[in-house]
């Protein structure tokens, strides 16, 4: 090699560019959507590990009756920080990171619509996350020992008032999430404008890949549903710092209003979190079934319908506060309506597989497991949507089991599918399929062992958020089973991390299009150059790469 290059005179400046500080400067000052997307995902994974360690401690504490691993106050902080981190610092950066990395590539654009706003969104998000964790040092305020927020991830009033929440821990919760939320809104705004204004010639809305469609609707939901949380948090700040009365019941304020405002944000939020999984499945399943997606217009319509309905279901989190029977009926009915478009989606994914030439690589395995597990999560959701049923099991481990099935057995499986699917594109190298299969099976078994018993514990009457329990209530066995799932989940996660790190450095070169796929991101090199495409592509159908590979039978003839 050296003899080939010996004639080329290399200026010394080029050598100096590879110093560590230059490299760091490149990453910190970047406005490239791919680098920002990667930074979102890497910081999301870091927070995922931190929140996972918290979950491990929580499960160890609950493994046996009268657990003594942590004291009650620490336990309250653990479940608060675990929930807050998983929703705002793991789920949201994955939404932003995936859409940042993939949307411009999929619509044939060279960057997002507002690259600097994009960088602002990422750094303000990271700053918000660090602010939340700084509470471990600064939460006690000037007076003394630090502590993290301990008010639960939905921070119900009046627990958050000055009287019950002393020190600055709750303020860190408010400000950290408020700041991170601004970043999420900035990123979502960017995704919307990018999809509306930056599509390459020929990329009509009907030809847009499903992934872009779902992320567009997801971003739309973010810019509508996140401001209510910001508004409620500003009101809480007014209460805490200016002596306001928004949630102060003693001067006529309403603690229930906080619940309304929080869940007006909070319920759309869970759809915001699950949509990336929908987006990933809608790309992975067709490629690994060698069939175009079944009923694409119905799929887009179903996502839009879920997004729309999700704005009107929030009070199903509040059946137990004693609303009017009309409200209970309305929110039971509207929640059950969500089941119809979700059913359409599951049907269409299955119909895409039906009669296809299935390739059971790891991304597809995660998608298949998603279908089963998300179906169960949806069914327990329908159960909880029924007011009287919810009165029985509200705030019990059944609820914990339900939402961990949607978010871990659903969302996380979708994210793993996506990460394996796009890993060759992002790194230019192939992951180790054998290790990935180990990861899949260990993780699936671990998730089932941990989260299925939680449903039973709920039926047996175990409330959520208790730091320990007395023996003799029939909870010991299932708690121990749930904790033992860690023996599978932890090694699975370690295998995943090892696989990603090792393959990114030493994996086999993957080539530009290892999966024989159809969307535009596979048309450029792996990893894509900074400018994405040498020439802006032109598309004539929903599967531009199919047209290129099959000039005798292109899709555009049938559109």
């Amino acid at each position, binding site marked *: 090699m050296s003899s080939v290059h010996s004639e080329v005179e290399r200026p010394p400046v080029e050598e100096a560019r590879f110093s560590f500080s230059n490299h760091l400067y490149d990453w910190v000052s970047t406005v490239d959507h791919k680098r920002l997307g990667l930074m979102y995902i890497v910081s999301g994974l870091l927070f995922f590990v931190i929140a996972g360690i918290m979950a491990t401690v929580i499960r160890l504490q609950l493994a046996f009756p009268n657990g003594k691993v942590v004291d009650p106050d620490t336990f309250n902080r653990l479940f608060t920080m675990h929930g807050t981190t998983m929703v705002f610092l793991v789920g949201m950066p994955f939404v932003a990171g995936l859409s940042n990395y993939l949307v411009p590539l999929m619509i044939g654009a060279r960057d997002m*619509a*507002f690259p600097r706003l994009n960088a602002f969104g990422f750094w303000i998000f990271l700053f918000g996350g660090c602010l939340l964790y700084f509470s471990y040092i600064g939460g006690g305020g000037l007076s003394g020992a630090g502590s993290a927020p301990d008010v639960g991830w939905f921070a119900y009033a009046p627990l958050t008032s000055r009287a019950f929440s002393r020190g600055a821990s709750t303020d860190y919760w408010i400000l950290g999430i408020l700041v991170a939320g601004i970043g999420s*809104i900035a990123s979502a*705004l960017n995704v*919307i*404008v*990018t999809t*509306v*204004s*930056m*599509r390459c*010639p*020929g990329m009509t809305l009907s030809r847009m890949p499903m992934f872009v469609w779902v992320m567009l609707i997801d971003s739309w939901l973010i*810019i*509508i*549903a*996140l*401001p*209510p949380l*910001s*508004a*409620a948090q*500003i*009101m809480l700040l*007014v*209460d805490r710092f*200016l*002596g*306001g*009365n*928004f949630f102060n019941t003693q*001067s*006529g*304020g*309403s603690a229930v*209003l906080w619940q309304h*405002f929080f869940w*007006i944000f909070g319920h759309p939020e869970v759809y915001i979190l699950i949509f990336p999984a929908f987006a990933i499945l809608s790309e992975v399943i067709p490629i690994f079934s060698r069939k175009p997606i079944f009923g694409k217009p119905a799929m887009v319509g179903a996502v839009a319908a879920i997004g729309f309905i999700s704005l009107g279901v929030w009070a199903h989190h509040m059946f137990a506060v004693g609303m009017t029977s009309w409200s209970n009926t309305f929110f039971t009915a509207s929640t059950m309506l969500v089941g119809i478009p979700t059913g359409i989606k599951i049907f269409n994914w299955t119909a895409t597989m039906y009669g296809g030439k299935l390739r059971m690589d790891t991304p597809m395995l995660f998608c298949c497991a998603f279908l089963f597990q998300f179906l169960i999560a949806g069914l327990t959701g329908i159960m909880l949507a029924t007011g009287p049923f919810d009165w029985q099991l509200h705030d019990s481990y059944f609820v914990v089991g339900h939402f961990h099935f949607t978010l871990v057995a659903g969302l996380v499986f979708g994210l793993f599918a996506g990460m394996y699917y796009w890993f060759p594109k992002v790194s230019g190298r192939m992951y180790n399929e054998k290790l990935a299969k180990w990861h899949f099976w260990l993780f699936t078994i671990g998730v089932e062992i941990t989260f299925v018993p939680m449903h039973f514990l709920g039926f047996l009457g175990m409330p959520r958020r208790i730091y320990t329990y007395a023996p003799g209530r029939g909870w010991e066995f299932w708690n121990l089973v749930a904790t033992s799932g860690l023996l599978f989940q932890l090694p699975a996660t370690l295998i995943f991390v090892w696989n990603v790190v090792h393959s990114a450095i030493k994996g086999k070169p993957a080539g530009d299009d290892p999966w024989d796929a159809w969307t535009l991101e596979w048309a450029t090199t792996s990893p894509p150059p900074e400018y994405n495409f040498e020439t802006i592509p*032109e598309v*004539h159908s929903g599967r531009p790469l199919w*047209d290129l590979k099959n*000039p005798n039978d*292109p899709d*555009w*003839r049938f559109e």
Partner: protein
Amino acid sequence: MDAVLTQRVPPPIGEWKLPDRGAMGIIFLIVTETALFTIFVVAYVVYMGKSLTGPYPKDVLDLPILASVCLLSSSVTIVFAETALKKHRLGMFKLWWLATIVLGLEFLVSTGLEWKKLIYEDHLTVSTNLFGTTFYSLVGLHASHVILGMCFLLLVMIVSLLGFPIETQERRVKFLSWYWHFVDAVWVVVFTVVYVIGR
């Protein structure tokens, strides 16, 4: 149909024009701001008449007619400024732009005087009662948006007075005026809820 099925070359795409990204950006910013304001308006409406102690709105609030007229007419003057800029009549642009700033400032001064009266004469603060909490939050949130808009208006004024060729920034001036119209529209809602229905 058969002709299409044997065609080798895809039909040409023709003219490909997508919406201006700046315009889309400002429109969706307005959408997300609307969601923020909606929650504050809802909180105000929910707590209307729920204060346990005085002072109550009907005792202390006066209709801010002058301020409202000023703010709403600033929406008209900014359109005049925009039209002048489009016709490259820079003198007229600066004049109408200055008028917009003066009208906006008058609104802010009126709000400040109103708050001074409420605080010092009527002893209504954020912590006095629910009315105080919701009133200062909603009106204050709106006023902070007016202040933000005012900063950008002043920026445009200063750079154009310093000789910057502002006519090259017609697009951005237009987007700023959209934001200003939004702030005015929010005031119509706040005025109706706080001073008409809530009194």
